[in-house]
């Protein structure tokens, strides 16, 4: 990697959506026509999504300049002034951004650095060295031992100790065993598995091969969401390249160990992230979970011992073997070792993909890395763990991010979605959003999950209309506890969490909805009214054509008026008003 001048263009899904492809093409064309001695290559996600499209110029001595939010004109300037002229264009560069300062990159070490479609580049960074070492120098027990010592726990949400899982499957004597990588990243708000698969696919394959060796499996599947076409394409290429190079297939590294991998595309069912449902789906059935035990480590795919690990968990494995369990365990807390990747999004200044040592306080993530709440608004809560997780209020911002501390708040580490919510977010609406999700995704097998979530959803809908009675809040909580207790799988057992955490930390907001018909965040449409302030309105009529239902008409004087009956509360008039003359009122003052 050293000694050559190269330009890295972030070409993950988000980079492409932000316009990175034309940037890459233009750079290639410019470098070509000018005959510059510089390598232009696509790389995976750098994590700095708020600055896409991103381009990094690496000089022969390793000096790096990161350019952000580029358009064609900016690319031409970089080519002329930096690549030809030799002077970095400071005003286009990211400069001293604190985004990376507190991060530790283990899982993401290659993302944004190597060309994900080049096996050569992965190998140049030490790729497949860990597999070679495991196969030629270590026993399967030794590998399990090393992973156990590292303290690695499942990164898909469960937090089960990985070494323990492997040792259970390794202890089974069966002629056929399976290794499955769970890439069915279904949590809304989580995209770390997609980024790893798009940015460093070989790392996941290497992790799978090592796991397979440790448990004695010779066949592997990657179960990946069909909604991730780019990840599937890159993974497919990586598998083909690894086979060609003898890194997958028969007798790897001249040992008796054989292992091959196939991709199974999911067909769109959130519940398939649950391991027994995932197995049912690979077997060609409806993705309904089954009762455990027996656990998959004993009887999994086609009744054979099976280990299912999440993408991020497996991406840690080669690093642990390369650098040793001690070094990995040096990061994090007593019970939660290593790092965790989070997808930071929502009402945050710098959204993106981050990797931090376990144990960092939530507030540090939001303010130091994320730059605080967007638009200088007040932090209200952080939603962690998606539909299975909960809303942690701003008052608990000093809670460290680790499995146990988060569980105590009622949320979970989960797969790593972290959505920042500000004062304009209604917590009843957020709870309803997640419950609507799990309610629709329930497979229908368990009565409490199927019907209980439906009844809960109906209660939340009543609250959003300002209906119901205060006692309903306790009924909602009681039903939520029952859904948790009487569901077979993780979906039902965690579906009430968003409701239970919001009723716990934001109960007064529920009460205001029911008692006063008031939505403080002014989100619930049945509880708000748009009114034009006759004093501040300058009668410019900009709002009139914006209204989709023609609800705005001339008032008695030089001002406009909204017909409250016709108004659909879309807010377009308010967005366009240059004088902030449109008030949104809620609660008793509406009457």
């Amino acid at each position: 990697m050293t000694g050559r001048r190269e330009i890295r263009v972030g070409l993950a899904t988000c980079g492409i959506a932000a316009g990175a492809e034309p940037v890459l093409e233009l750079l290639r064309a410019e470098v070509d026509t000018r005959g510059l001695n510089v390598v232009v290559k696509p790389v995976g996600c750098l994590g700095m999504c708020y600055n896409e499209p991103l381009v990094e110029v690496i000089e022969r001595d390793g000096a790096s300049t990161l350019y952000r939010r580029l358009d064609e004109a900016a690319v031409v300037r970089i080519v002329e002034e930096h690549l030809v002229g030799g002077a970095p264009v400071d005003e286009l560069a990211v400069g001293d951004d604190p985004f990376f300062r507190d991060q530790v990159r283990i899982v993401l070490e290659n993302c944004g650095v190597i060309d994900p479609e080049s096996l050569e580049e992965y190998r140049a960074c030490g790729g497949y060295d860990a597999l070679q070492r495991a196969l030629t120098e270590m026993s399967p027990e030794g590998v399990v031992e090393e992973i156990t010592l590292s303290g690695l726990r499942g990164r898909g949400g469960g937090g089960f100790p990985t070494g323990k899982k492997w040792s259970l499957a390794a202890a089974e004597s069966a002629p056929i065993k399976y290794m499955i990588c769970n890439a069915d990243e279904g949590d809304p708000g989580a995209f770390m598995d997609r980024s790893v698969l798009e940015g460093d696919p070989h790392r996941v394959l290497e992790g799978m091969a090592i796991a397979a060796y440790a448990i004695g499996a010779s066949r592997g599947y990657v179960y990946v969401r069909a909604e991730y076409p780019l990840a599937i394409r890159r993974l497919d290429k990586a598998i083909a390249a690894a086979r060609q190079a003898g890194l997958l297939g028969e007798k790897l590294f001249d040992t008796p160990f054989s292992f091959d991998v196939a991709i199974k595309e999911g067909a769109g069912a959130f519940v398939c992230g649950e391991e027994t449902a995932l197995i049912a789906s690979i077997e060609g059935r409806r993705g309904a979970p089954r009762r455990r035990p027996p656990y998959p480590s004993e009887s999994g795919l086609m009744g054979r011992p099976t280990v299912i690990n999440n993408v991020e968990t497996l991406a840690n494995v080669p690093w642990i073997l390369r650098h040793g369990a001690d070094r990995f365990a040096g990061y994090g807390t007593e019970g939660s070792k290593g790092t965790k990747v989070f997808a930071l999004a929502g009402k945050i200044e710098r959204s993106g993909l981050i990797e931090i040592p376990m144990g960092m306080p939530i507030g540090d993530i939001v303010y130091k890395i994320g730059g605080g709440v967007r638009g200088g608004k007040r932090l209200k809560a952080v939603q962690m763990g998606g539909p299975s997780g909960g809303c942690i209020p701003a008052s608990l911002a000093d809670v460290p991010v680790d499995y146990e501390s988060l569980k105590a708040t009622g949320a979970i580490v989960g797969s790593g979605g972290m959505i920042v919510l500000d004062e304009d977010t209604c917590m009843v609406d957020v709870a309803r959003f997640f419950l609507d999700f799990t309610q629709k995704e329930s497979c229908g097998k368990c009565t409490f999950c199927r019907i209980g979530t439906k009844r809960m959803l109906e209660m939340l809908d009543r609250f959003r209309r300002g209906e119901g009675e205060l006692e309903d809040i306790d009924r909602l909580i009681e039903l939520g506890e029952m859904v948790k207790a009487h569901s077979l799988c993780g979906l039902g057992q965690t579906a009430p969490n968003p409701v239970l955490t919001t009723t716990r930390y934001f109960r007064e907001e529920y009460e205001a909805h029911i008692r006063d018909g008031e939505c403080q965040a002014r989100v619930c449409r049945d509880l708000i009214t748009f009114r034009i302030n006759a004093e501040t309105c300058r009668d410019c009529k900009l709002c009139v054509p914006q209204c989709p239902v023609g609800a705005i008409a001339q008032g008695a004087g030089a001002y406009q008026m909204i017909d409250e009956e016709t108004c659909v509360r879309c807010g377009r008039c308010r967005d366009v008003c240059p004088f902030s003359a449109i008030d949104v009122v809620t609660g008793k003052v509406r009457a």
Partner: protein
Amino acid sequence: MDALSLSQVEGTAERKNLVPGSLSVIPLLQAVQERFGYISERQLEEVAEYTGVPVSTVYGVVTFYSQFRLRPPGRHLIRVCQGTACHVLGAGEVLATLQEELGICEGETTGDGLFTLESVRCLGCCSLAPAIMIDEATHGRVTREALPEILAPYRVGGGT
């Protein structure tokens, strides 16, 4: 679209190296839908016949997974992300505007067969919220005002 003969499903299975058996049900359905845009009643029966799985079970699989379609979609598929980040940043308004613009509801296809509008759980582009996906292209930080411009190329040349 005319119904297929079993040999065509078999041909699809062969190309994808799918052997008869329940393991092939989902990949085969996916291959059929990828090629024809949806799964017809006839094809459903053929998949059942080829795999040896009862047609009732295959139908159960098709209706369980949100990916499968039993009706032909429009030429371009618009998917509006309803993930968490998109939700709090205005995905509802994006969907409403698209429904207005196209004159159809979520799940429907325009009369000229050009667009099908669907909402999806999460596209995994949360940093670019609110996001939509048209065919395989993802568009981020979508605003109401930008939508006509985003749709224009698909309207003119029929898109890619």
